[in-house]
């Protein structure tokens, strides 16, 4: 009798433990992405786009133009020696900075295009239009970052698994301008819609980026016109470096990634400070001696831009230390002053001197266009040090080979080697 009961019990146990329905398991931090985005999803997805564009390219991509521009060096170098060796080392198709920048921008692009494609089927209300505007801005931002580093790159208007060939530089710029025009039309207004929140993308930010893009293409007057529009905007004013680079409220920033520690892995600070410095970093890069000397004592930018601690020179613009993160500026009014000045040529000298005055410097004067351009580029060098401009500025004005002493090929970064292997339709930049 006991025996029979136990058999029944055991059979019951076996049946109870037959659990094929338990093979359908789903993660708790994600949902299936097969479903179409709703309007509500689209707004959450836009937040994700901000995060992706901020993080995916990796921290070095924000300062590559500084690393390649001759003003920075490996922290282990002595007295600025071997700067060119340092640059050539980065400019290798197998170098991780090259690789992670390329990959990162395209990863971010995937999220942007996912949203843009979904938005095609969503209604044309003002909320969705703002999402469209911001998405187009980010696509333009991504392509601006790519084209200035790699030259002509594959244009993806929507996501594709195809192995795309490279487009020309002109095609990429045309695509960027198209996107930015949509962004200017649809993105929220800086003061009205956003209430002056410079951590969100506005149509003013799109305009600022378009001004940069025009200048990059040598469309100087168009660049100056756009820049002037922003300079004229009452809600933007040149402000103090202290506020701009120490996460304080200011009237100068047009758009900056907020880059909160919890949400970001873009920790620039640790690359610049020594372990012995109070900000404690791993001291990967340092300013070259000539970069230390470019700030005169009365230049208010000097102490905020660079510092010397226990005999070691450090970049001081990203001060949160080893474990924190700093705001990442994309566009601020000073750049627009410089764009306007450069776009106008000699006629832009007053704009240049306005900026100089704001930074505590005496006005300068120039005898001819070349002199003026040199003065202007020096000012850009001081103003935008450590913000990802220097190498691009020298390349677009054809001064890179002379001034930095780089090789011909090093006016463009190489296409990453792994990408060439995975996509036979890509062609390497000349000289690599």
């Amino acid at each position: 009798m006991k025996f029979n009961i136990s058999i029944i019990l055991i059979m019951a146990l076996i049946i109870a433990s037959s659990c094929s329905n338990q093979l359908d398991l789903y993660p708790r931090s994600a949902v299936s992405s097969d479903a179409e985005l709703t309007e509500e999803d689209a707004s959450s997805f836009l937040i994700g786009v901000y995060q992706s564009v901020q993080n995916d390219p990796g921290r070095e991509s924000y300062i590559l133009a500084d690393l390649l521009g001759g003003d920075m060096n490996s922290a282990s170098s002595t007295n600025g020696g071997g700067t060119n060796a340092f640059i050539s080392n980065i400019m290798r198709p197998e170098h991780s900075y090259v690789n992670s920048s390329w990959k990162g921008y395209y990863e971010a692009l995937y999220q942007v295009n996912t949203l843009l494609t979904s938005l095609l089927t969503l209604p044309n209300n003002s909320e969705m239009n703002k999402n469209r505007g911001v998405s187009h801005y980010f696509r333009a931002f991504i392509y601006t970052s790519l084209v200035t580093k790699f030259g002509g790159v594959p244009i993806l208007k929507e996501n594709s698994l195809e192995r795309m060939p490279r487009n020309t530089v002109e095609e990429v710029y045309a695509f960027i301008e198209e996107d930015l025009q949509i962004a200017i039309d649809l993105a929220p207004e800086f003061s009205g819609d956003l209430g002056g929140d410079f951590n969100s993308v506005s149509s003013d930010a799109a305009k600022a980026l378009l001004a940069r893009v025009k200048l990059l293409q040598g469309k100087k007057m168009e660049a100056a016109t756009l820049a002037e529009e922003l300079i004229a905007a009452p809600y933007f004013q040149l402000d103090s470096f202290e506020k701009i680079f120490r996460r304080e409220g200011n009237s100068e920033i047009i758009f900056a990634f907020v880059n909160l520690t919890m949400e970001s892995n873009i920790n620039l600070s640790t690359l610049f400070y020594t372990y012995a410095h109070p900000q404690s970093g791993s001291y990967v890069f340092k300013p070259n001696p000539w970069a230390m000397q470019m700030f005169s004592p009365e230049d208010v930018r000097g102490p905020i831009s660079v510092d010397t601690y226990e005999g070691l020179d450090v970049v001081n613009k990203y001060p949160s230390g080893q474990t924190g993160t700093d705001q990442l500026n994309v566009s601020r009014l000073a750049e627009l002053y410089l764009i306007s000045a450069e776009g106008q040529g000699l006629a832009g000298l007053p704009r240049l001197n306005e900026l100089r005055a704001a930074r505590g410097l005496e006005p300068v004067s120039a005898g001819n266009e070349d002199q003026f351009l040199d003065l202007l580029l020096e000012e850009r060098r001081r103003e935008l040090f450590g913000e990802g401009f220097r190498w691009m500025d020298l390349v677009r004005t054809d001064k890179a080979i002379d001034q930095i002493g780089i090789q011909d090929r090093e006016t463009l970064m190489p296409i990453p080697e792994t990408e060439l292997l995975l996509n036979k339709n890509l062609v390497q930049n000349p000289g690599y």
Partner: protein
Amino acid sequence: MKFTYLGQGGLRLSFAPPNYLLVMKWTLILSLAFCFQVTAKVHSQDLTLKINGQQLTEVFAAIEDQTDISFVYSDEMIRQAKPVHINLSKVSLEEALPMVFAQQPFTYQLVDQYVVIKAKPSAEREEIAISGTVKSQNGELLPGATVRLKGGSKGTVTDIDGKFTLSMLPDDAVLVVSYIGYDSQEIALGSKSEVVIILNPSDNSLSEIVVIGYGQQERKQVSSAIADFKPTEENFRQVQGPDQLIQGRMAGVYVGAGGGTPGSDIRVSIRGIGSLSGQNEPLYVVDGIPLVNHNAALFDLGEGMNPLAELNPNDIESIEVLKDAASAAIYGSRATNGVVIITTKSGKEGKSSFNIQSNIGVQYLPNVNKLKMADSDLYLEVLNEARFNYNEQNGYQPGDGNFVNYQENPYPGYPETDWLDIVTRNALVSNVNMSFSSGTKKTKLYLSGGYLNQQGVMESNEYKKYNTKVNITHQATSWLEVGTNTNLSFSRNNRIPNGNYGSAIMLRSMGQRPFDRPFKPNGEYYVGGTEELLYHNNVQILNEQNTKLDNYRMLGNVHADIRFSPSFHLKNTFGMDAIYTEDYLYYTDKHPYGAGQGRLLDERRMMTNGLIENTLYFDHTFGKLTINALAGHSFQKVTTSVNSIDGRGFPSPSFDVLSVASEIASASSGFGQNSLESYYSRANLSYADKYMLSLSIRADGSSKFSPEKRYGSFPSISAGWNISDEPFWSLSRTDLKFRASYGATGNQDGIGSYAYQALMSGGANYDGNSGLSISTFGNPELTWETAKQFDIGVDLGMFAGKLHLTADYFIKNTENLLYNMPIHATSGFSSVTSNIGSMQNRGLELMIAYQHRFGELEWQSDFNISFIDNELTSLLGDEPLLIGANRTLQVGEEVGSFYMYKMLGIFQSDEEVPQLLFDQGVRAGDVHYEDVNNDGIINVDDRQIIGTSNPDYYGGWSNTFKYKNFDLSAFLTYSQGSEIYATWRITTDRLGIGAQGFREEVALDRWTGPGTSNEVPRAYHGSGYNLNNSSRFLEDASFVRLRTLSLGYTLPKAFLSKLQMSHLRFFVQGENLYLFSKYSGVDPEVSKNYDARFMGDDNMNLPQPRTIRVGLNATF
């Protein structure tokens, strides 16, 4: 007729031998009984007997009075009769007789009207009693040995002192004595009443019992490729985990060394590289529970930690490795990389013993002389030479921006620092284990407790482990057995940064400038990454961090085994492997990573692996055909829950909990689960012990695949033939068996739990708002990786078991390889989990065991060797994949191939340098890389496959010598033909490229002019050209290592019996005593990565230490 009296006459024939008479007499009675048997009939008269203490003959008389029955007996026999007490009324004769004879030493037979009195069947002859002792060759008493009468059912087991008694044996009795691990022995008793039986250790491995999946099998019956290892006192290595025990012991089983930090990961690969993803770890099954491969640590401090180190090797009874598909297929989808079955100890019937094992030793880092760094004078000479070469080649003058200044010794006359010496130590290791084992027919019990304290050779590195174990089985009723087997462990690992980690101690102890020092004159640290110190200060790193990895583990099961009939039984098991991990890492404000304010990382994980399993067994013999079959169902679910907090800002180093932190920099929690449902079945058929056939199948359904691709079936077949059992086999002292098998196994390791699903994840937050993003593509087509394996093997025993040889040849084809395949970045992702290709492994494995006695000297030698080839046979698109810095996956090549520039030598003159390279600054004295495509420039297209991290062959060789009470064993492991990439040399061989220190040997051998060197380039500042990934740093990793050498002395029994002990052995054991290798580094077995694709890359993970220890093993 009253009773017939037969007895007297026979005894009077005194001239005949007594035995002869006896035989005659009984022959008569029995033939009488036989003749009458056919006419036996029922006697229905009623009997009434009231007899109290009277003689049997009086009972006979009473019965004869009441019936027509007569009794037939001999006087001699009736004298043994016992007085009778009986009280019966109105019973039949048939009922009465059994009661009458119940207490008598003889029986009866009813033949028509006669009752014939005769001896009981087992006592047909004169009975004798015997007592004896069973011992092993070296005098060890063997409790629990089985002693049984040959051809009879009588038997017993020996007691704790190895003693037994048996009575009432026939005088020509032959006893069969058997004991696991020893040869059975037959003893003819003759006239002896006391015997000492000495058993020889089993040299016939065919008779041993082998654990197979879901059961056991006699070695002779095994038709698949299974290797086994049973730890003994002599071969036991004092290691942390069971996986290390089998290193070098089995053909086809490669066990890497693991690093020198206690508890660190090791690589175990069975029959080569099984998969591309994951670590190719075999499936470990401990006491029936399949374990989940994972990293025992949560923070990456440069190396993984081995979860098997949490188990206690002293508790291990045996380790079996299922190598071919036929043996492993019963574990289906997880068996592609082989299955390691670990069986822990259990109590033995009749044996009650208490055992203490204890040892203590010291560890240190060997061969450090290979890492001698250049002293200050040499360092400065070479450094300044490098700077001079740079300035001169580029025409830089002092004052130029690019001019590099020369270096002087900042502390002339001060002593230099040996950076490695100041952080290494002679480390203490100690280990105590106690176990208690006992058993009765119904209940068997094994209890143990262990403690291990192992200091690392680096300061502050320490591993402590506490283990307990309970194993009980109980026969509750005739049909039900219940039991539990529970292993509990707690381990605490004070880790050090290692491997590639930024503050890795070993690497940070190299490459400092020789004149730099750890402390400033005021006692503060010099901080690395500054002008004063190049790399992290290793003293500071160790002093200012506190790491603690705690693992609590419960691995165990309860089971019930229900026997329905002699042939059928059902085993239900509930198993659980629950691991709670706390990983704690605290950096004080003085630590380089302490962010100047103190930082605490606290990460915790709860991982449960639950198993419900029901298996129905059928074992039956039909004549010569034996069937062992089973069918079962199992469900396994793995759940992982993690949380992690990163806090910063502590008022002082003495506050180290997160409630004190001024800022929580990040906090997160996660949850994941996956499950597997399986049906499995197997039939082992054996005919006359000569022909074996085994069929098995397992169907697995995994939550990792989409419902359409979820289930996979993995069948196998194997056959064996004991040819030496055939009548035509004429070599009597030779055993020979042929085996062949074919089957399929699967793999789903190394891919994410939700890999098939395209996912939109939360957590893509920006500016405090919650965001969504696409986190994976998903691949609904994803399916099982399947390996089909053919194996053919032979087992040969020669010279009556003195020599054993096992050889296997296998071909294993793996298809649908799972891989995170890199894809072009414009797709938006860098990789997608796919089934990308196929691979083949071929191999030959050979094991030879030989034993011989030279008088009192006994020699046992075990040698194994494995030759395994790997080849990728297809890849999606058949295009090579570049992986890591210097590897590739290419069709037709091995996984683990090195892909890099080939160094041809050193340019001896500028004229040799191609123009394009010359323009890039390459000059005489720089490395001459092979320009494969002859385009005059060295770029990625010039890389080629050079070497592999897979050895041509590897194995182990152990030799044990026993002489009287001494035993000496030496164990060698070896590997030949693999290459190792010495990544660490990129740090130590820089020769002035930066300011790093460099090895003395390299500095002295550098190129300084034509003809000075063709191996080491010139010193040159700034350029990494000479440091390109190339064959310059690729070295031969072949080695022979004296793995262990141990000497033991067992105290004589006579002496021990006075101490009430049954066994006491003292030993001294050395580990890693000598290494024969051409490798320039310390240890060619250490790798920074145990992934099959990246093995053989030495970036100064801590090398294996050398250990000397003394210990004892006592049994009461």
